[in-house]
C-alpha cells in the first residue's frame, strides 16, 4: 500500500458522544469527515488542535466505517486534555497505522484473550471482529482484569458478550467489594480457570506493561508456543510512519512493524516490558 496524501495532515472528526467508562477512562465516539477504515489492532493518532497528539487503537468494530470509537485513560498531558472534550467538538485523526491482529490466522482455533485495564480497548475491537466471524473459531475466551469493580469498563458490552455462543467471559479485580461475584486477584489467575486445548489455541495479551509481562510468562508456563502469543505493545508512537524514532524497540519501529507482535519476534530485545 502506498499513501499519496500528506501523511502528517489529520482529517477532522466530530465528537458525537462521550461515554464515562470508569473514573479514569472515557470513550469518545467520533464521526470522521469521510469514511474511515481500519483493521482491528491498527491504531490512529488523535490530534487535539494545536495542543498535541497521542496514539490509540480504536475500540469500535472495524466493520463500522462511519464512526470510530476510542477509549482513553487519563494518564498524561494529551489524555488529560482529551478528557475535557465535549460532544460537538472537532478533533483530528491520522492513520490507520501499523500491523494489527492477523485474525485469519486465528481461524479454527481457541482464542484466549488476556486483557487488563484500558487494554480492553483494542480487545473490544478484536472481539467485535471475532463475533462477526464467530463460526470460524472453536471458541473465544476473554480473561479481563481491573483494579476494582468500578474500574471495569464496557459493562454493557460484557453483558452482550456473555450471550454469544462459544464465547466465555472471566473477570477479576485486584480488590473486590461486597457486590463483586467474580474472581479477586491478579488477572493471570483467571488462566487457571479456563479449559483450553493449548495445542490448538492462540493467546492475545493487551494491558499495562507489568500485566503483559506476567501474562506472557504465565502463558509460556502453560505451554503456549512463543509464536502463538500475540502482544499489543505500548510504546511512544508519535509519527506512526516508522520515521520519528520515538517508539523504537530494538530493530522495530513499533508504529509500523507492530504494535501487534508475536512473543518470539521481540523476546530477545531489551526492556520490552517497559
Amino acid at each position, binding site marked *: 500500500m502506498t*499513501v499519496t496524501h500528506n501523511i502528517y495532515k489529520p482529517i477532522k472528526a466530530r465528537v458525537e458522544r462521550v461515554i464515562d467508562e470508569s473514573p479514569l477512562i472515557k470513550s469518545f465516539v467520533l464521526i470522521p469527515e469521510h469514511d474511515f477504515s481500519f483493521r482491528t489492532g491498527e491504531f490512529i493518532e488523535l490530534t487535539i488542535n494545536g495542543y498535541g497528539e497521542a496514539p490509540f487503537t480504536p475500540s469500535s468494530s472495524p466493520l463500522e466505517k462511519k464512526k470510530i470509537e476510542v477509549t482513553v485513560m487519563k494518564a498524561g498531558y494529551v489524555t488529560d486534555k482529551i478528557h475535557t472534550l465535549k460532544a460537538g467538538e472537532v478533533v483530528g485523526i491520522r492513520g490507520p497505522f501499523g500491523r494489527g491482529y492477523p485474525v485469519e490466522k486465528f481461524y479454527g482455533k481457541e482464542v484466549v484473550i488476556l486483557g487488563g485495564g484500558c487494554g480492553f480497548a483494542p480487545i473490544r475491537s478484536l472481539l467485535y471482529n471475532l463475533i462477526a466471524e464467530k463460526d470460524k473459531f472453536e471458541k473465544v475466551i476473554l480473561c479481563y482484569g481491573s483494579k476494582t469493580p468500578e474500574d471495569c469498563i464496557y459493562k454493557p458490552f460484557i453483558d452482550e458478550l456473555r450471550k454469544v455462543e462459544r464465547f466465555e467471559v472471566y473477570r477479576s479485580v485486584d480488590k473486590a467489594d461486597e457486590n463483586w461475584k467474580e474472581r479477586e486477584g491478579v488477572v493471570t489467575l483467571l488462566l487457571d480457570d479456563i479449559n483450553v486445548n493449548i495445542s490448538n489455541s492462540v493467546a492475545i495479551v493487551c494491558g499495562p506493561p507489568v500485566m503483559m509481562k506476567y501474562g506472557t510468562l504465565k502463558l509460556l508456563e502453560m505451554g503456549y508456543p512463543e509464536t502463538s502469543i500475540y502482544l499489543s505493545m505500548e510504546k511512544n508512537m508519535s509519527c506512526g510512519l516508522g520515521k520519528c524514532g*520515538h517508539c523504537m524497540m530494538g530493530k522495530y519501529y513499533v508504529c509500523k512493524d507492530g504494535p501487534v507482535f508475536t512473543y518470539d519476534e521481540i523476546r530477545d530485545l531489551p526492556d520490552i516490558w517497559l
Partner: protein
Amino acid sequence: MKSTFQISIHDWHLFLLELSRDNAVYVPVKTYNDIDYKLYDEDQTNIVYNIARPVTPLKTFLLPVKENVVIEKNKYNKKIIIGIPACDLKALEILDEIYLDETFVDHTYKENRERSVLIGTDCHEICENCHCTSYGIEPYPVNHADASLILMDDDIIINIHTTKGEELLGKIAPAYPFKELQAENLALIEAKREIVKRKLDENNRLLPDYTTTGILIRNSSDESWLKHSKTCVSCGACATICPTCTCFLLIDRPDFEKVRQVDACQYPGFERIAAGEDPLHKKSVRFRNRYLCKYVWKPESFNSLACTGCGRCIDTCIGNISKNKIFIEMHASSHG
C-alpha cells in the same frame, strides 16, 4: 559539454553569482575556527574547496531543524549545495530509505531533495576524527552527487554525474571559457586521493570496522556503558549533528498543522509513554541505545550504513566522549 572540464576560479565565482540571482547557492566558508555553508554573494570571502567536511551535515538542508509539514509551501527555487563531502553523500542512503520509504513518502523531504542540486567535493584535508574509510567509504564523491568539483591551483575541475547536474552546470559552456580536463590534473587528483586514504587508514588503524563494531556493542555489558557515558550530559548534540540520525518530534500547531523538529534519543523522556514508563530512563541506556541503533538495529532493517564516519559527534561532544576511543578499547579488550 563534456562531463568533465575545468574553469578558472574567477569565472566559476562569476557563474555562482549568476546562479545565486535565482537560486539559493550554498558554499563552504572558513570562519574563525570552523568551516560551514553560507549563502553565496559577491562579497563572500574565504570560500574553501577540497576541505574536510563543513560543521553542518547535508541532512540539515533536507530535514531542517524545524519545518511545517502540513501547509503547502510556495514554490521556491533550487538549493545548490556546493562542497559536500563523501560521508554526507553516503548518509543520503539511509535518509532516503527512511523518508522516501514507498509506504509512507515524506513529501516535504522529497520536495527538499528534488529541489536540491548536490555538488560534492574531494576531501584533501581531513579532520582529527574523520574515519570514513574505516567503514568502506572513499573520501571523495562516488555516488549521490549531481556533480563534483575540486580546486586545483586556480582552476575548478568539474565532473557532472546526473541530468540535474547537467541542467545546471551545462549553462557554463556558452557563457564562460572552459578547458578540457588536463591529464596531469587527473593524475594529481588520483595521487591526492591515495594520500588522503592512506592518512585516514593510518589515523584509524586501530578502529574496528562497521560490522565488528556492531558485534562488540551487542556483546558489551550494561556496566561498561556506565563508564563510557560518565561525562555525557544528554545534550543530544551527537544526534542532531549526525548526518544519519533521523529522529524527530512532531509538534502540534493551530489549524491542525504539524511541525517536524529535530529530536535526539539522548534527551530524557524520548521514549516515555503516558503512564510514565520509559525504556530509556537511565542515561547509560540512552547512550548505548544510540550505538545499538546505528551498528546493530539499523543494519538488521536497512541496507544503508547508519554511521558514515564523519566524526562530528566526537568533535561536538561537550563531555569529551569519543566513540572511536570506546570502540578501540572494546576491540582491544575483546582480543584479551
